[in-house]
């Protein structure tokens, strides 16, 4: 053994000072824990819903009194807490790395953790005590306990605190570097949160301005149609808030992990700017069948929805190019040979590659949903959960899982427990979800309604049996995969901390290299974030003010009802 190698095996102290300060990393870790705990509990409840399809009712839906209470728990924990917690944690960290400086405010960073925690506890408790079985869309005039709405509001506030911190960090960086282009990793982080900052105002107005006072008795009545419009103002953009942290990993970390390079800095910025501009003025495509909204406005949102599909198409090209680049560098030959040359033994890469493959189907089915008239075939059928388990349930969730396979070892300085189990976890998830969604989609095309306790329903059609069995089987496979994930996570936490330079280097995160066409070849105006934000707000107003004008005066005439 050479002396250099011997030195690398000596225990060393790597201090926590530097850009990753202990006070801020504590919040990053804490929010990741909240996120993964929600995945564990919320995901596990999914098993009962899948089995209910084939009339297996494990008594009675786990800890729950009825199917819909469990379904609410599953939806809220996975769609809001798991995703918000992960985004807050991961994107805070990419901001630190992107701008190569600590976050501007440690207090705000820790505040976002506490607010997320309190919001999760309030929401979780009201659901567990069966005071809020309103599903994650909480359409009024179904009325949940006021603490449920308060919890929902706090979840959003935690993301605002992260946004505030990212913006302050960017401004501090800009003062220190007045002429530099925004580093790409910082750019994708900040645009993700600015987009969500604008998008979340709709649901914030709904929850704080209407539902909370209404549940407290201050307001007697609500307007269900107006409520749905405000919900979906945020409700489609939230899809991109789920997805963009995954895109950050695909654009910034995956090229490095497969030994390739991202191709174009400019196109990457273009894609994220498109998401900032067009994520929000598309919400009406969730309301094509709402009676209170004018048809012309639905058509305008349809067109904008097709625009927002575009950056994902560019992403497909850019990521594929980076993957092929990596595969060829690793010796892959021929038209498809590079695919097999990718690092299929790295669970973080495998999870994310499979997430991308599944996402192709998720994206296409999303386009089906958005297609005005085709939507009438699938709206509110089981096709929809079939679709979004491919997108948020896999493209986002399995990517987040893939990221944790390097992020958690890096944060804890403990190597990943059982690479083999982690690999099987990724494969089982991807195969499981394909079977699950195949069941849901075919059922949906044959008039199977979504969010319905089908095993006990007073109706059924001949084609549903196979659909239900596929859904149940896929759900069981996904649960097994989830179990493997948590075995790997807990095993990792129980591993011994490593302390030699060689071992610590092996846990270093995959940080991006400069793209082949770097920022010098990009359009400089992409960096004018203030202007882009204003354009985004103008577009949103242009797409929504006519909707509101045509709708007003609002009809606050529905009293709250408890239906569970």
């Amino acid at each position, binding site marked *: 053994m050479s002396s250099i190698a011997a030195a690398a095996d000596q225990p060393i102290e790597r201090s926590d000072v530097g850009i990753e300060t202990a006070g801020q990393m504590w919040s990053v870790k804490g929010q990741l824990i909240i996120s993964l705990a929600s995945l564990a509990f919320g995901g596990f409840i999914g098993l009962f819903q899948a089995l209910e399809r084939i009339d297996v009712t494990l008594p*009675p839906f786990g800890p729950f*009194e*009825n199917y819909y209470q469990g379904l609410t728990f599953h939806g809220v924990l996975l769609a809001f807490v798991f995703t918000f917690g992960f985004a807050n944690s991961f994107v805070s960290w990419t901001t630190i790395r992107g701008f190569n400086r600590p976050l501007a405010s440690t207090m705000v960073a820790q505040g976002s953790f506490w607010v997320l925690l309190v919001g999760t506890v309030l929401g979780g408790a009201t659901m567990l005590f069966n005071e809020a079985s309103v599903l994650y869309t909480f359409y009024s005039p179904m009325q949940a306990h006021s603490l449920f709405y308060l919890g929902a509001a706090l979840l959003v506030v935690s993301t605002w605190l992260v946004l505030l911190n990212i913006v302050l960090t960017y401004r501090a960086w800009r003062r220190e570097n007045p002429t530099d282009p925004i580093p790409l990793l910082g750019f994708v982080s900040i645009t993700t949160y600015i987009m969500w900052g604008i998008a979340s105002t709709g649901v914030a107005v709904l929850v704080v301005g209407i539902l909370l006072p209404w549940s407290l008795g201050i307001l007697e009545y609500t307007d269900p149609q107006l409520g749905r419009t405000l919900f979906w103002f945020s409700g489609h953009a939230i899809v991109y808030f789920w997805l963009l942290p995954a895109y950050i990993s695909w654009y910034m970390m995956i090229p490095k992990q497969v030994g390739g390079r991202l191709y174009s800095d400019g196109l990457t910025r273009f894609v994220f700017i498109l998401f900032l501009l067009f994520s929000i003025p598309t919400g009406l495509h969730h309301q094509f069948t709402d009676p209170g909204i004018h048809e012309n406005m639905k058509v305008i949102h349809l067109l904008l929805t097709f625009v927002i599909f575009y950056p994902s198409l560019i992403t497909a090209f850019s990521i594929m190019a980076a993957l092929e680049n990596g595969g060829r560098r690793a010796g892959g030959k021929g038209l498809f040979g590079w695919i*097999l040359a990718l690092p*299929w*033994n790295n669970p973080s890469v495998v999870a994310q590659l*499979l997430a991308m*493959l599944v996402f192709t*189907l998720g994206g296409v089915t999303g386009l089906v949903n958005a297609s005005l008239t085709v939507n009438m075939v699938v709206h509110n059928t089981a096709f929809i959960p079939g679709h979004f388990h491919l997108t948020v349930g896999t493209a986002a969730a399995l990517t987040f899982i893939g990221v944790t396979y390097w992020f958690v070892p890096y944060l804890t300085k403990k190597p990943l427990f059982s690479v*083999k189990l982690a*690999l099987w976890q990724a*494969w089982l998830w*991807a*195969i499981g979800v*394909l*079977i699950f969604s*195949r069941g849901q*989609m*075919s059922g949906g*095309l*044959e008039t199977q309604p979504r969010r319905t306790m089908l095993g*006990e329903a*007073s109706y059924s059609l001949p*084609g549903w049996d196979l659909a239900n069995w596929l859904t149940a089987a896929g759900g069981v496979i996904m649960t097994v995969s989830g179990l493997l994930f948590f075995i790997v996570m807990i095993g990792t936490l129980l591993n011994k901390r490593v302390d030699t330079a060689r071992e610590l280097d092996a846990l270093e995160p995959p940080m991006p290299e400069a793209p082949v066409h770097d920022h010098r070849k990009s359009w400089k105006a992409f960096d004018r974030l203030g202007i882009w934000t204003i354009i985004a707000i103008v577009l949103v107003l242009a797409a929504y003010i006519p909707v509101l004008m045509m709708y007003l005066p609002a009809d606050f005439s529905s009293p709250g*009802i*408890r*239906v*569970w």
Partner: protein
Amino acid sequence: MSRRVIGGLLAVFAVILIFGYSSTIPLGDDDPRPVDESAGTGGDGSLEEVGESIYEQQCSGCHTIDGSEGVGPSLAGLYGSDVSMEDGSTVEVDEDHLVESITDPNAQTREGFPSVMPSFSNLSDDEIAGLVAFIQSLE
């Protein structure tokens, strides 16, 4: 994982993706189903069977018949029992009380349950009698 296992998993994945999903859309089965005239009313069954059929269609979301509590009280052993009401009174469950509870449920509410039951006054007298007979038959 060996290359063979990885190749196998990729193949499974591809087969489900391509063949599984290309078969999702049901083709050619556009003819409507023939009308099932026995549906809905429980056919020519006894009063009790009519009641059971209506129970399963309209009541079982909230009321169990196995003694466990749902949104509303269980119907098991309900008939003939004494139950306490939200206003503090106690009522013996007889036919009149059942009929009133079905047609005007919020006239009185059982203690510990929310007043959320809709009125089923659109049921015919025979159907209500069937429901009462069905509830009477539950031990």
